[in-house]
């Protein structure tokens, strides 16, 4: 059975199970609680079907993605698609990345608790939220003012104290907070910005989707070793092509 069919099957099973449980054990639950339960089931299914099956093995990454409510990071119109195996539009020509992309990019930097990570392209804030549960400090930059405002409001409400967000041009990075153990660029870039490479710590890693805008990009993992930069071309991806002039 393909993933789509599994999705439908598990959703239906979840609904039926929920219905059966509510009939067998009637308890006073609010609509919001029921919704949360459903989203929780979808989230678990996302982790099992989309992440584990495709080889995401970092237990902490899987655990965090199983906990963070992705549906609050997507527009209301797409809430019920939040755990689908797809990126979703969040307005202003931007998207929240597909769950697998969030997981693989996070896993690639081998997150550890003492790390300081820069994210370029906050979007709705989901990737930053995932990172903030895994590393010591997260700095996130969003260039589109309305998105930056909305993400700041949401992340403040959800309480991510080790996450700092600013509106600005990600090309310049965050020199005041540099150097970083890892840098994640979460929107397709036609080139690798030199200031970001300079803000990467010795031994640091950068994950960036680069390539022809409006086409399929390559996910690059750039390592800084002995002052030299080595790029590893990992896989084809399709990100929303953004921000830098092509």
């Amino acid at each position, binding site marked *: 059975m393909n993933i789509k069919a599994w999705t439908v099957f598990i959703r239906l099973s979840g609904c039926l199970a929920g219905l059966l449980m509510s009939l067998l054990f009637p308890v006073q639950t609010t609509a919001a609680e029921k919704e949360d339960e459903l989203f929780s089931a979808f989230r678990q299914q996302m982790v099992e079907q989309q992440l584990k099956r495709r080889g995401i093995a970092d237990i902490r990454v899987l655990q965090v993605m199983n906990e963070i409510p992705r549906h609050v990071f997507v527009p209301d119109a797409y809430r019920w698609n939040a755990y689908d195996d797809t990126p979703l539009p969040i307005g202003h020509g931007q998207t929240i990345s597909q769950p697998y992309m969030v997981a693989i990019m996070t896993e690639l930097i081998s997150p550890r608790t003492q790390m300081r990570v820069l994210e370029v392209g906050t979007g709705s804030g989901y990737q930053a939220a995932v990172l903030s549960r895994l590393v010591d400090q997260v700095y996130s930059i969003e260039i589109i003012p309305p998105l930056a405002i909305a993400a700041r409001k949401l992340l403040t409400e959800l309480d991510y104290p080790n996450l700092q967000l600013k509106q600005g041009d990600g090309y310049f990075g965050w020199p005041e907070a540099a150097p970083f153990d890892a840098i994640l660029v979460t929107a397709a870039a036609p080139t690798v910005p030199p200031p970001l490479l300079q803000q990467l710590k010795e031994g640091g890693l950068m994950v960036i989707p680069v390539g022809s805008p409006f*086409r399929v990009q390559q996910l690059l993992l750039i390592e800084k070793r002995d002052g030299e930069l080595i790029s590893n071309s990992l896989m084809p991806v399709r990100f929303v092509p953004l921000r830098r002039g092509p």
Partner: protein
Amino acid sequence: MNRLLAALSLLSAAIIAFQLALMRILAIIQWDHFAALCISVALLGFGASGTLLALWRRWFLNHSEILLPSLMLGSGLSMALVVPISQSIAGGFDTSLLFIDSRQLWLLLLTQGLLLIPMLLGALAIGLCFMRQVEKIGLLYGANLLGSALGGPLALLIMVGLLPQQLPAACGLVALLGGLMLLDNKRALTAGMLPLLAILLLLLAPPALRPSQYKSLSYALALPQANLLATHPSSEGLLQLVEAPAMRYNAELGLHFQGQLPQQRLLLVNGDQAASLPAGTRKELGRLLNQTPAALPYRLGPRSRVLILGSDLAGPTALALENHAESVVSVLPHAALLRQLSTALSWLDSARVSVLHTEAQQPRTFLARTSQRYNLIQLPPVGSFGGNAGLTALIQQPMLTIEGLASAWQHLTEDGILQVSSWLDAPPRNPLRLTATLVAMLQQAGVSDPAQHLVAMRSWNRLTLLVKRSPFRASEVETVLKFCAANRFDPTLLPGRSEVLPSHYHRLANSQLLPLLERILAAESPALEADYPFRLAPPTDDRPFFSQFLRWQHLSRLPELLELRSIPFLELGYLVLWVTFVQLVLMALLLILTPLFKLGWRGGRLCSCGYFAGLGIGFMFFEMALLQQLVRYLGHPLYAAAAAISTLLFFSGLGSYWSGRLPVKYVQLRKLLMGLVLLLLLYPFVLSPLLSATIHLQLPSRALVAVLICALPAFLMGGPFPLGLRHQARRQESLVPWAWGINGCLSVVATPLAAIIAVEAGFFTLMLLAALAYSGALLSSTFFR
């Protein structure tokens, strides 16, 4: 009668102009492939009109006096209204969201339905004219075709003077004028003033177009402090100049580069990036680009004469001037873009006076007409402009064929270098096919060991290939190695090394590319082509679709091959064409078969259907095959296409008018069709040599040759349809609108079918099949005996 002919011509011109205007608008708010998808369905309005006229023939005829002008007025008014309406419903369709948001499917169907309305109303008016006076069909069909012939030039004219959002109203006005001409009494004329006022209002104050949020223009304007500096409508597209502090020039620099990338302005055509205008002086840009792979040819020796084909103008010119080029020729098939570039970059304009020469024509045409040789010929990166895997896979790329690359090779000096690069994709396709095409070109040019003439290196995103006219020397190979080391590029193919070099700076997770390159160099291309899941065979002029990689036998493996994660559009371009075709076939079948429930199934229906279907298919096949050759011959894609189509329609109109004088005798019809079939069988064999022999002529002479080429077959193709209708009317008049519908349906279905045949079998076969389609009509015509 004269008023009717004039009104019919105006309506026909308006419909063609509206079709072209829609193509422009849909390309601006979405993309070209969406435009083709919508318009092909909208054109089924012609088929649908035949069905409606056949089903309610009597009613239409009884009310034709009032219906005819009303339909024309309605067609004109709906032309002006459908675009604003479709944009205002739920923000309009967005093709980028089709795979994510299920509402988009309904919006797509709604958009197609809305666009169908003006076509349907217009086609109903035309069909009704034919149905009322079948005996004068030659004259009426002639007026229809002559009007259609005027539609192309009319569209080009209004595209220069008006903004895209004004175009539908302008077309609507022309159709409306046709309707007003047919109104006799004062009351009706007064009523006709209301749509006129509405159209004038939409012409003078049209609602702004709302491009997809995923268009380059939308991205650029979403950036802080972004400014739309200029908007220039042109017949070649809507040109817009945008600046934003956050936009920076994308140079292919090594990762060790420590400086700042210059800011840039963007020049967009129809909302998509067409050219970069980097800030700073020419010298600063030249120095920056000296650290990119594009600079390698200059390190290998002086390049005094440089030819830049179809590429971004600013960067390669700055690099050439920085490296002391004495003459730089830039060829771009987009005159308006060239003008804007020259005016927007002052140093480019001043360079034009002394060193730089620009030519607005197809690179292939330029190469075919010049005898000049160059030290360096640069092609644009494969996959960056017009054509890559995915939805643009069906774009013809005549420079990226064996013949196209050979034409560049022939214009190299003895130490001249041809440079071209390709984006690295995974699984590898573009770099492999590019290398295979270059190797095939070298083999055909008589080079015994192509590896001695090839150098390749890799950056983090591209493979750059250099092909030298003479074999690379050992000292040059050393220079390549030094250049790569200094700029952190990985040398990949070097003469004298049978194996592909290992990666140092840029590792490939997908290790297929390097061994596959080795196989291509080892002349194993045919074997590789046989077992590789994507098409890698070098494209030829007959099948110039470089970016079409899809192979049917591996379709089911696509998700696995592409490691499908979030790439819904990859490799779907050709599939979209098939989906369009199947959708059209189903709708055409419905439209053709429905009237038979009323008209009956017996009495030679199959022969009638075969006859009018053959004419529709034959005309479209011939037109598309001819266009492919004439665009390259004349050099200006848009004008060549418009001129060729208009010429075909004009002479077909004359042919139709002439056919009105022929008696309704089967022998006449048979003679006409036999002559046409013989001529069309001859064309595939004589056309190419004729065009090659005369391509050196000046443009007016070539235009005359093109007109002569079009004239005779077009004249003959104009006759069989009206003659057939007259035969049909004599046998059973009630089938006339049905026949008109069949012709309309099949003309529409034939368009994607022609593209499929061109991809699978080539344009030569397509032209032969045009003759075959007319042969089918000839066979079916025995029914009229």
